[in-house]
C-alpha cells in the first residue's frame, strides 16, 4: 500500500495495480476499447492513455502498474486530444453505416466518437475493403468494421481454448481471420459467440433469423410454435433498459403470444426431461461399467469442441440431445400427432441465450426425413428486436403461463441456465433414483457461483460420486487433459461452453459486466428458492409424457427421439 496522485488528488493504492484499475475504483472513467477484465492487457488500442509526470510520452493506463509517488493526469488537453485523434483515425477507416448497423446504439466506437467530440474526419477518404464472412450459421464477421482491438482473438484463445481466429498479415494490411482465411463454417469455431459479446463494434454479430421468423408468423399456412430457454427470462429485460436480475418469464410468455406464436413452450420442461434421461443414463453407466466420467451434452459449442479436439472422448459425452432438440423432436412428433398437424407445417422456433444453438438445429442428426426438429433459433437479443419491430411493450404485458403439454417446469430445469445447474438438478434426481428418497439439502453450495471449475464429492446411498462442473472451454480443456492423464475420481462432468453458463451466453444482451452476470445468477437461484417443485422427477407433465408416449427413460421411443450419437469431426482449419 502506498499513495499516488491522480488529477491532484491523493489516492491509496495496492502494489501491482494498474493505473486503470485504480481510476476505475476512484470513479474516474478512462475510455478503453481493447481492455478485457480478467485477461492480461494487450495495450493495442491506446484509448486509455494518460500523462504521468516525468514521462515524455503518454502512458497506457490499462497495462502500466502504479509506482510510489506517481503523479497521473487523466484528462489534460494533450491526453484528450490524443484520444480524439485515435477515435478519429479509427472512424476514418470505418464504414459510415451506423444508422442501419446491427450494433447501432450499442457500439463502443460510436459512443467514444460522441464522448470524445469527434465532429469531423480530417483523414483520407479511402477505406479498407474486405468481404464479410457469412459462411457460419451462427456468427457473421465483417472485417471492415473491425478495429483490430484483438478481444475476439483473446477470448477465443484464452477463455475458450479454441483459437479459431487470429491476426493475419501485418501492419496496415493486418486483419482478424481464420487459418487460410477460409470461412468460419469450416474452421474450428465452435459458434459460442463469446467474441460477439466482447466486440466493441459491429464487426461480429449473430447471424440473424428475425426476418425468417417474422415471415413464418405472417404465413397462414404455418403453425408457428416457440420454446424459450431457462436463462432467457432473467436477461431479456436488460434489452429494454431494466437493471440485470429481473425475471420476466410471465410477461415474456404473454408477449410471445401477442407476436402470434400458436403455442409457447418452456425449454425448462425438456430440461427436466433431460435430467430423467441423463440421470438414468448415468446410473446405467455406473451400474453396467459403461464409459465414465459421463459428460453433459446440453451445450452445442462444447459438443463441437469434443468432436474436433477430443474425438477419443466422444463416448464419454451423454447421448442425450440438448433440451432444445428434445423439445424440437417432441413438438414434431408427439405434439404434431396429438394436434393432427403435418410436421412440415409446423415452424418450430426457439429463443436461446446462444449462437451455437443456431448451428445445432441445422445439424443433420437433428432432423427426421430432412425436416429439422427446430427450424429457427433466435437469441435473446433477436427476440428483443422482434418485440421492438412489432411494437410490443414487454413491461406492459400481463404475465401469462406457458402452454400444455410442454409448459410445466420445475426449478431444477430452470437452473440449467447457470453453471452448475444441470449438475445440481441431476444430483437431486439421481439421489432419488438410487435411494428412493428426496435429496435432503436445499442447495449444493460447492457447485454454485461463477467459478470456472467446481467439484464436489457426494455420497448417494452406497455410491461415492465425484462430480465436476466446468464452464468456459479453456477450463474444460484442462479437466479433460487431467482425465486423459489418468485422473479417475470423477463420474459426472457438467460442461458449459460459456463462462458462467447460459446466463452469459453469446446470445445474451451486450455490454454486460460481471455484476450483471451475478445478478442473473441470483435471479435463477431466487426462482429455485421460491419454487414449490424443485426436482425434475416431480414434473407431472414429464411423468404424464412418459406414461402416454415415451414409455420409460432410455426406452425405445426415447432412444429414437431424445438421444443421438456424435462422431469425430474433421475441420478444415
Amino acid at each position, binding site marked *: 500500500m502506498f499513495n499516488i496522485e491522480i488529477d491532484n488528488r491523493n489516492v491509496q493504492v495496492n502494489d501491482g495495480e494498474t493505473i486503470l484499475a485504480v481510476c476505475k475504483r476512484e470513479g474516474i472513467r478512462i475510455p478503453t476499447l481493447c481492455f478485457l477484465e480478467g485477461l492480461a492487457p494487450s495495450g493495442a488500442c491506446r484509448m486509455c492513455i494518460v500523462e504521468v509526470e516525468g514521462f515524455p510520452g503518454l502512458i497506457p493506463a490499462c497495462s502500466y502498474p502504479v509506482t510510489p509517488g506517481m503523479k497521473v493526469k487523466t484528462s489534460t488537453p494533450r491526453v484528450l486530444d490524443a484520444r480524439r485523434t485515435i477515435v478519429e483515425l479509427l472512424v476514418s477507416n470505418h464504414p459510415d453505416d451506423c444508422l442501419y448497423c446491427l450494433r447501432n446504439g450499442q457500439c463502443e466506437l460510436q459512443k467514444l466518437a460522441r464522448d470524445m467530440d469527434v465532429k469531423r474526419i480530417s483523414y483520407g477518404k479511402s477505406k479498407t475493403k474486405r468481404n464479410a464472412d457469412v459462411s457460419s450459421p451462427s456468427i457473421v464477421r465483417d472485417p471492415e468494421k473491425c478495429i483490430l482491438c484483438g478481444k475476439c482473438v483473446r477470448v477465443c484463445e484464452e477463455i475458450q481454448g479454441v483459437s*479459431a481466429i*487470429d491476426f*493475419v498479415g*501485418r501492419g496496415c494490411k493486418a486483419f482478424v*481471420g*481464420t*487459418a*487460410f482465411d477460409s470461412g468460419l463454417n469450416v474452421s474450428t469455431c465452435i459458434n459460442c459467440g463469446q467474441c460477439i459479446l466482447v466486440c466493441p463494434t459491429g464487426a461480429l454479430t449473430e447471424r440473424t433469423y428475425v426476418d425468417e421468423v417474422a415471415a413464418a408468423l405472417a404465413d397462414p399456412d404455418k403453425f408457428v410454435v416457440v420454446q424459450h430457454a431457462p436463462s432467457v427470462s432473467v436477461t431479456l429485460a436488460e434489452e429494454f433498459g431494466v437493471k440485470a436480475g429481473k425475471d420476466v418469464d410471465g410477461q415474456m410468455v404473454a408477449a410471445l403470444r401477442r407476436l402470434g406464436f400458436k403455442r409457447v413452450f418452456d425449454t425448462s420442461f425438456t430440461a427436466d426431461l433431460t435430467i430423467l434421461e441423463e440421470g438414468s443414463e448415468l446410473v446405467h453407466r455406473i451400474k453396467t461399467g459403461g464409459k465414465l466420467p459421463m459428460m453433459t451434452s446440453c451445450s452445442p459449442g462444447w459438443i463441437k469442441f469434443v468432436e474436433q479436439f477430443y474425438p477419443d472422448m466422444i463416448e464419454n459425452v451423454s447421448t442425450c440431445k440438448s433440451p432444445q432438440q428434445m423439445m424440437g423432436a417432441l413438438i414434431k412428433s408427439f405434439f404434431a400427432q396429438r394436434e393432427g398437424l403435418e410436421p412440415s407445417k409446423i415452424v418450430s422456433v426457439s429463443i436461446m441465450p446462444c449462437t451455437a444453438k443456431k448451428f445445432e438445429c441445422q445439424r443433420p442428426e437433428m432432423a427426421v426425413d430432412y425436416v429439422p426438429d427446430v427450424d429457427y433459433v433466435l437469441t435473446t437479443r433477436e427476440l428483443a428486436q422482434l418485440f421492438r419491430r412489432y411494437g410490443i411493450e414487454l413491461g406492459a404485458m400481463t404475465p401469462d403461463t406457458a402452454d400444455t403439454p410442454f409448459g410445466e417446469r420445475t426449478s431444477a430445469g430452470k437452473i440449467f441456465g447457470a453453471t452448475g445447474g444441470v449438475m445440481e438438478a441431476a444430483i437431486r434426481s439421481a439421489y432419488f433414483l438410487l435411494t428412493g428418497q428426496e435429496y435432503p439439502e436445499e442447495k449444493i453450495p460447492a457447485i454454485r457461483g461463477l467459478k470456472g471449475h467446481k467439484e464436489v464429492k457426494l455420497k448417494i446411498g452406497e455410491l461415492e460420486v465425484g462430480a465436476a462442473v466446468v464452464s468456459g472451454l479453456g477450463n474444460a480443456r484442462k479437466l479433460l487433459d487431467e482425465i486423459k492423464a489418468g485422473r479417475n475420481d470423477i463420474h459426472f462432468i457438467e460442461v458449459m461452453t460459456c463462462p458462467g453458463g447460459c446466463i452469459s451466453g453469446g446470445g445474451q444482451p451486450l455490454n454486460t459486466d460481471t455484476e450483471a452476470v451475478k445478478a442473473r445468477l441470483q435471479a435463477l437461484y431466487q426462482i429455485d428458492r421460491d419454487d414449490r417443485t424443485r426436482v425434475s422427477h416431480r414434473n407431472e407433465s414429464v411423468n404424464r409424457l412418459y406414461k402416454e408416449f415415451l414409455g420409460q427413460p432410455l426406452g425405445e421411443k426415447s432412444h429414437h427421439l431424445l438421444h443421438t450419437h456424435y462422431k469425430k469431426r474433421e475441420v*478444415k482449419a
Partner: protein
Amino acid sequence: MSQIKTVLEKYPNAKRENLIPILQDIQEACGYLSREVVNEVAQYIGLPAAKIYGVATFYNQFRFQPLGKYHVMICRGTACHVKGSQKVLDMVVKALGIQPGQTSRDGLFSLGVVACMGACGLAPVVSINGEFHAKVTPKKLSGIIAEIRDKELSHAKN
C-alpha cells in the same frame, strides 16, 4: 507428405519456439506452405492452425501457393524504388492478375517481392527463376512475359 515427415523428425519434442524454423524447412522442401502442411504442423507442435497461419502471414518469406513454372521476383529495395520499381510491380500485378505471394491460376507465373537483391547497380532489377534482368522498365518486362507466354503456348500446341 514424406518430405514433411523428414523435416519434423529433425525437431523432436518441438515447441512453439521451433515453429518458424520448421516452417522455413518445409517451405524449402515443398516450395510453399499448404493447408494440409499447416494442419500437420499444428498437430505436431500442439498449436492452433489459425495461430500458425497468423505467424506465417506476418513474415513476407512464407508462401501459401505453390511456385509457378516461372517465379518472378521484383526488387523493391531503395535503389530500385528510386529507379521506378513500383511502376514495374504495378504493371506485372496487372499483367499476371495476381498479387505478390500468389500464383496465377494456370500455374505458369508466381510473383514475389524482395527488399533488396543486392544488385543495386542493375536497378530496377527483376529475377525470373533466378535469372537477373537489369534496368527493367514496365514495357521491357511486359515483353519478357509475353515472350514466355508465347513460348509456353507453342509448346502446348506441339
